[in-house]
């Protein structure tokens, strides 16, 4: 079943904590690799980022996230679970906008799969971000130059 990975606003720390609480249920897992993407208070031309506003093509995000999970599971045979969460809407500087958690029998596959998943998210997910500065101006950003 394809699930939505999108969350309105920041990924709540309470949600992360409850996902971590559940980890021990699979006693076949020997390693968990996590990546948390956080909004940086970057300064561009003297303007400091106070938030990022994310927008997404939600139907396609669901399709692409499903493809990413399937391709990672096909590539790494030792995985126990894979969880992806991504924000839409406003996420303030210092808050979490991306959460990836990969559990595997052994550490190498957990870490390699996590890193690969983050790269695929950046490359494949139809998500856009607009930096909002403290002076309330804004600017669209992209991950890869076209």
């Amino acid at each position, binding site marked *: 079943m394809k699930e939505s990975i999108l969350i309105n606003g920041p990924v709540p720390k309470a949600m992360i904590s409850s996902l971590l609480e559940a980890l021990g249920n699979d006693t076949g897992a020997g390693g968990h690799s996590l990546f948390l993407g956080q909004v940086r208070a970057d300064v561009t031309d003297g303007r400091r980022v106070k938030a990022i506003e994310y927008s997404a*093509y939600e139907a396609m995000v669901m399709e692409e996230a499903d493809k990413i999970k399937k391709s990672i599971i096909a590539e790494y045979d030792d995985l126990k679970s894979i969880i992806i969460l991504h924000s839409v809407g406003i996420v303030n500087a210092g808050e979490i906008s991306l959460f990836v958690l990969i559990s595997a029998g052994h550490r190498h596959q957990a870490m390699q799969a996590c890193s690969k998943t*983050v790269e695929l998210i950046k490359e494949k997910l139809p998500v856009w971000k607009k930096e909002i500065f403290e002076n309330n101006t804004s600017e669209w950003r992209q991950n890869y130059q076209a």
Partner: protein
Amino acid sequence: MEIKVLFFGVLAEITKTRFKHYRDITSYDDLRLRIQDEFPEIVHYNYRIALNSEIINEDPELKNEDEIAYMPPFAGG
């Protein structure tokens, strides 16, 4: 036929809309020209096109109620 067109990111900003229905479309080329006539600024931007949530690299055969998305370079994470 009728085609729903979605605009994302900076393209939603320059078109001042997130989606729009185009009626009496005869082909993808017809649609493309109608959009460029309406939003001439769009040609200055980089974007890719998705048809019903799948990226397409060649002009597609459209059918009624297809959904076309205009997508600037992705910026997730």
